[in-house]
């Protein structure tokens, strides 16, 4: 009896320790990635990096200012398309959607979230790029928007569902229309949560590379019009890291540092905002 009890206790200790080990092991790659991105990225960053165009292959110096600007433009483009559409879809799902159509939309939202981003890329290529007969910032923005749309829609829906029913009833009892209720009561009280969701989605798409490869392509010049191909940080990281040139590897690490800081800052800010909103209630 006693031996059995000791064995169970030891086994207990052992398994519980294993979970601690698992946690520690998982933090190693995270630490390693952040460490290398910082250590190899920092030396590449200087004024030129943020203000100059990429140098010709073989020439030293140059920067990735066009890629930084390009990423911002692409994300804004995607947001301009996906955010209004996504919020409206979320409103439909939470406030009006009943029955078969709502179920289908909700289901397809989840399906779309699971579609590999490279597939979004080739579909936008065959619809937009082939139709316009050119790679363009617009096509890149559309590809990112398709990825962003279901995320915004589903978070909006979930957050609207958290708004107490009594608020809607109070507004309706005062004689407001459904539309007015949604606009001035439901959306207003859910605004913080929706903004958090949009920021998290933005952080997700800012680092997307695969959907841009065949849509926005890449560019060595400053972003032109919407119908011109455009540079972006993720695509530059990919192309530079797969060349044999040390100098370009250095720039790729620099670009990775800038991208990671942009993405993490956005998502951390979103989370902190969410926490403050929740705490404030």
């Amino acid at each position, binding site marked *: 009896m006693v031996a059995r009890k000791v064995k169970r206790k030891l086994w207990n200790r052992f398994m519980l320790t294993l979970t601690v080990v698992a946690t520690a092991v*998982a933090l190693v790659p995270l630490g390693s990635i952040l460490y290398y991105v910082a250590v190899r990225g920092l030396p590449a960053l200087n004024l030129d990096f943020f203000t100059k165009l990429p140098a010709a292959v073989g020439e030293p110096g140059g920067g990735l200012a066009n890629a930084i600007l390009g990423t911002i433009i692409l994300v804004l483009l995607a947001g301009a398309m996906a955010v209004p559409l996504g919020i409206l879809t979320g409103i439909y799902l939470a406030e009006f959607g009943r029955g078969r159509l709502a179920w289908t*939309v909700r289901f397809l939202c989840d399906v779309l979230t699971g579609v590999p981003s490279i597939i979004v890329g080739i579909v936008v290529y065959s619809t937009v790029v082939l139709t316009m007969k050119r790679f363009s910032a617009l096509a890149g923005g559309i590809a990112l928007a398709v990825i962003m749309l279901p995320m915004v829609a589903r978070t909006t829906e979930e957050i609207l569902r958290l708004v107490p029913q009594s608020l809607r009833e109070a507004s309706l009892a005062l004689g407001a229309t459904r539309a007015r209720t949604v606009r001035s009561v439901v959306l207003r009280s859910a605004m913080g949560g929706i903004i958090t969701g949009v920021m998290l989605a933005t952080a997700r798409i800012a680092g997307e590379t695969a959907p841009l490869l065949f849509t926005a392509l890449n560019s060595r010049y400053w972003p032109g019009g919407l119908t011109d191909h455009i540079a972006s940080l993720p695509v530059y990281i990919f192309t530079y890291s797969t060349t044999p040139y040390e100098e370009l590897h250095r720039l790729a690490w620099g670009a990775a540092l800038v991208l990671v800081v942009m993405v993490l800052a956005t998502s951390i800010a979103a989370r902190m905002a969410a926490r403050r909103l929740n705490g404030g209630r």
Partner: protein
Amino acid sequence: MVGKAGRGKIKDTLFAGISGLAALSIVFIIIVMLYELIEGAGPALARFGWDFLTGTRWDPVHEKFGAWPLIYGTLVSSFIALCLAVPLSLGIAIYLAELAPSWLRDPLAFLVELLAAIPSVVYGLWGLFVLVPWLRTSVQPFLGNTLGFLPLFQGPPLGMGMLAAGLVLAIMILPIITSLSREVLLAVPLSQREAMLALGATRWEAIRMAVLPYGRSGIIGAIILGLGRALGETMAVTMVIGNRPQVSPSLFHPGQTIASVIANEFTEGFNELHLSALLASALLLFVITLLVNVLARLLVWRMNKVTQGVSRE
């Protein structure tokens, strides 16, 4: 007065209509996606038929397109990732949900979610310049010397290859599986644990016999969602897998996945047939990830229903 109420009604209908139209955009996107993939895949599928799935030669130059090496690479790299990520993720989830002191829980959960926020191309960069050299100089020679009699660990230590791809994928799907299973574990009612502990079980016995079985379908759902992510992951895999469409038992050998072949060859598509073969493999990937995701959602939904039913009682 009647006029005003009437106008309100019209506005309501209009608003519902506009939001409904927005919702239809999702349906529209999926239909366009399916149409384009099926339409584009047509020529290759018509030419090769079932051989497209079973053919072992993917050779754009000679216009031979058998997708089996790509399917093999996709499945094997994702399988390696699951083997590594599942035990780790469950360990972390258990630690975070059951054991960690409360001051440590939020910061740790936050760190794990940071892993999810890092863009996949940065994983690729890290994989290419940090993980691959490490595999080449330390891990693979060691594995080759000690376990080299297994076909899994034979061949020259190149660094790049199936093992590198599986490792990077494991790191990438770890946060998803962890955070979802943690939520599942947190949803298990306290009474389940207390009942076990009251019967004299140790902490671990309570977790293994009461908590884990209770959350089983939710945890399996989380794992399958992670699998779905691994199957479709493109950039990080493309950068470390070595990009050679071959079927080899050794994890040291380079391989190719459906997603990475598309990333590599799509813009340089030699001709109509090549492009069509790439679209056909994209269609295949779409169908696989669709099935995997639907399965996962069903399991997670069922889990939610079970726990909601309990908390209502």
